């Protein structure tokens, strides 16, 4: 039996793209979340920091939901082995995501200073935990975990916490931190921008060091010798990480392009390393799952391909449009007095009505 078919490879690529989109987009959400208290000192500033990702973070998280759903549809055996195997790690990620998701909503609704502080820490930890554990998880998927002949995981949570995987987790954690800091530098004004810039400058170097160390380990530790394609892409990631270092102060847009590239190449290197497997067994190479062994029928893959071809371009178009609509920088001054659309209506009436309301600033 072949290890893979065309459609299976296509879906492996599509699922990789979904994960890539997720890590690039939610990567800066995690970074911004973790830096909430470091960049925002007053409530107005914190509000501005949250606003920088406010309209988009939920759309960014859907990339994860679709990656999960697509894995279930295209590679059910992969979905089943991975999700039941990495059980407690995923539980921790889910708790982190849930706590972070509601912290946006409840921070603004908290009645007391203490209540707001609590939700700030919820956002920080709820961002840090998944940022760390996604790296740990993917390192383990690529490196191999104990899997038996029935494709069942036989390790525990602590099997996943090996030095290589922890390095991977620290790499994603710091890269996302730097990515988020640069995002804030790019998207804000005033004091928060200065703080974000100072943090970004300090964070980029450790992110580069940890990312490069992990990639070198990944390339050298590949089962059966160095995977050349993966090593080349890893080299691109290294270049991108290094390119972010000198640009971070003067040209945040370029630095952001660099960290974006670094995240993309970092994970592409991992996906290439993993191919043509979906799970690598450290128990016995014979128990590693190939694309063919994990995949759905070609009929299901064909159906899903049609759906993806029809919908993905539309999704990309309107997500890009959202970023365009909310392109304006945010600053703490916008949040001194929170205005509501009712003010606009009032203003409209006073001025004799007519025309569309003026932009209200991100406060409303």
């Amino acid at each position, binding site marked *: 039996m072949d290890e893979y078919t065309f459609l299976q490879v296509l879906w492996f690529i599509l699922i990789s793209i979904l994960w890539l989109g997720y890590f690039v987009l939610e990567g800066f959400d995690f970074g911004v979340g973790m830096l909430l208290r470091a960049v925002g000192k007053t409530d107005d500033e914190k509000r501005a920091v949250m606003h920088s990702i406010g309209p988009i973070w939920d759309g960014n998280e859907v990339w994860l939901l679709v990656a999960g759903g697509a894995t279930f549809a295209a590679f*059910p055996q992969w979905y089943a082995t991975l999700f039941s195997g990495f059980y407690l790690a995923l539980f921790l990620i*889910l708790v982190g995501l849930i706590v972070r998701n*509601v912290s*946006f909503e409840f921070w603004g609704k908290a009645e007391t200073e203490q209540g707001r502080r609590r939700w700030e820490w919820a956002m920080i930890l709820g961002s840090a935990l998944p940022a760390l554990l996604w790296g740990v998880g993917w390192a383990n998927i690529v490196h191999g975990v104990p899997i038996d002949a029935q494709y069942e995981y036989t390790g525990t949570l602590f099997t996943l916490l090996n030095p290589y995987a922890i390095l991977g987790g620290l790499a994603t954690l710091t890269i996302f931190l730097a990515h988020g800091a640069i995002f804030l530098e790019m998207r804000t004004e005033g004091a928060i921008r200065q703080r974000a810039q100072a943090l970004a400058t300090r964070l980029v170097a450790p992110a580069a060091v940890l990312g490069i160390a992990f990639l070198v380990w990944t390339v050298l530790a590949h089962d059966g010798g160095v995977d050349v394609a993966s090593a080349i892409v890893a080299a691109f990631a290294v270049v991108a990480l290094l390119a972010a270092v000198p640009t971070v102060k003067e040209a945040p847009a370029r630095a952001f392009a660099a960290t974006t590239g670094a995240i993309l190449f970092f994970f592409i290197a991992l996906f290439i390393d993993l191919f043509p497997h979906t799970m690598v067994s450290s128990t016995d190479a014979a128990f590693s799952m190939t694309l063919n062994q994990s995949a759905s029928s070609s009929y299901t893959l064909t159906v899903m391909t049609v759906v993806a071809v029809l919908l993905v371009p539309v*999704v990309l178009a309107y997500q890009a449009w959202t970023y365009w*609509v909310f392109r304006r920088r945010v600053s703490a001054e916008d949040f001194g007095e929170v205005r509501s659309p*009712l003010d*606009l209506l009032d203003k409209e009436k006073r001025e004799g009505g007519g025309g569309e309301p003026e932009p209200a600033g991100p406060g409303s």
Partner: protein
Amino acid sequence: MEPSGRAHRVAPVSALELARWQFGITTLYHFIFVPVTIGLAICVAFFQTRWYRTGDEHWLRSTRFWGKLLLISFALGVATGIVQEFQFGMNWSNYSRFVGDIFGAPLAMEGLAAFFVESTFLGLWIFGWGRLSKKAHLTCAWLVAASTALSAYFILAANSWMQHPVGYKMADGKAELTNIASVLFNNTALYAFAHTILAALLTAGMILIAVSAWNLRKGRETEVFGGAMRLALPLVTLAAIVTVIVGHFNGILMTEQQPMKMAAADAVFETQDGAGLSLFATGDFKSNPEGLNRNIEIPNLLAWISTGYPNGEIEGINNINAEYQKKYGPGNYTPIVAVAYWTWRAMIGCAMLMFLLAAWGWWLSHKGKLRDSKWFLKLAVPAVALPFVASATGWLFTEMGRQPWVVFGLLKTDVANSPSVDAAQVWITLVGFTLLYGVLAAIAGRVFVKTVKKGPVEAGEAEEPGQELALTY
């Protein structure tokens, strides 16, 4: 919890049993927010349309006020929705391996076609006030409403395949998709969708009625809440009638597709013609008719509900069980009869109470006496619990009534869980998630009540930072 109590006496609770508890808790919890979100999204889009068309300020204030309640529900629904999608793989890996070829497709489509639209346009709607043109902004509201409903369609198509598998063949001991159109247009799914959307409208309608009644009794904001009442009273009355009609045809379909579930719903043990509908029963649901007293019975009604004919034949539990033993091998194919019996009645009872309340309110409003009727305004507030009880019991009935099957006729629940996940691990996630859900529900409830008490904001008055819509995300 029941299983832990049993554990001390017999054996440690199995991972399977815990996984079932977890699925039930997560799903019921998630489904508190689902109908609120779907229903309120439609109502909010409606209010905004009224504002767009008339320019009347109170419609804008209604949009903003109900929008806040919508967002609280949405935040919780999204947070628990991720667990919903991941738990199939986490707790039910054998199930996932068995059905992945079919079940994964609607799930992935839900993400691509609905979740992306929902999250993106909700972000645009929340933050787009004054930044988008009024028309574009209104379009965002309707896109959110449409996509929440669409997402329900896909997940119900997936669930309906578990109730009534279609468009598949068996290959290598797994179900394999042969026809996607059969899965997406499964007649079970079409009825389930109609039923769920109606339930969502009932839920949102009852929230509108309860919140408006509370405010009207205090004489607050009569324009905003009078407007909500004028929408909600006919909405609930009509939705309840249509739900009953759809439910009737749904019942006939279920009798055909899952006769055991319907027989259990009325605790009919032996096959009979022209069976009556019992309103309540006491005694032992486990054994045969001798142990059970069916107290008040409406002649021929059950036969009519289930078959469409007053003298139609209802197959009894014992007969069906014997038939299934021949077909599927030895074993017990009976769900917990008491659960099916009572959940079915609770669901229908709640629907009837909602109908009576809304019809009464509609009549009062027609006579211009609504605001003076203390009794109606008082009763309408606690009545907000009815749609939630109806939804929860409805899901309990449909999922527990299908047991012992997870996929009807194809895969039993007791072999569907994850072999690599032991009881200790499920305990950790069960306790962890349940505590988290509890804390979040308490906070969300408090925020919800606070938002209601604060009421709609006056025009020209800056909203308190803590109350602003923009930061609900």
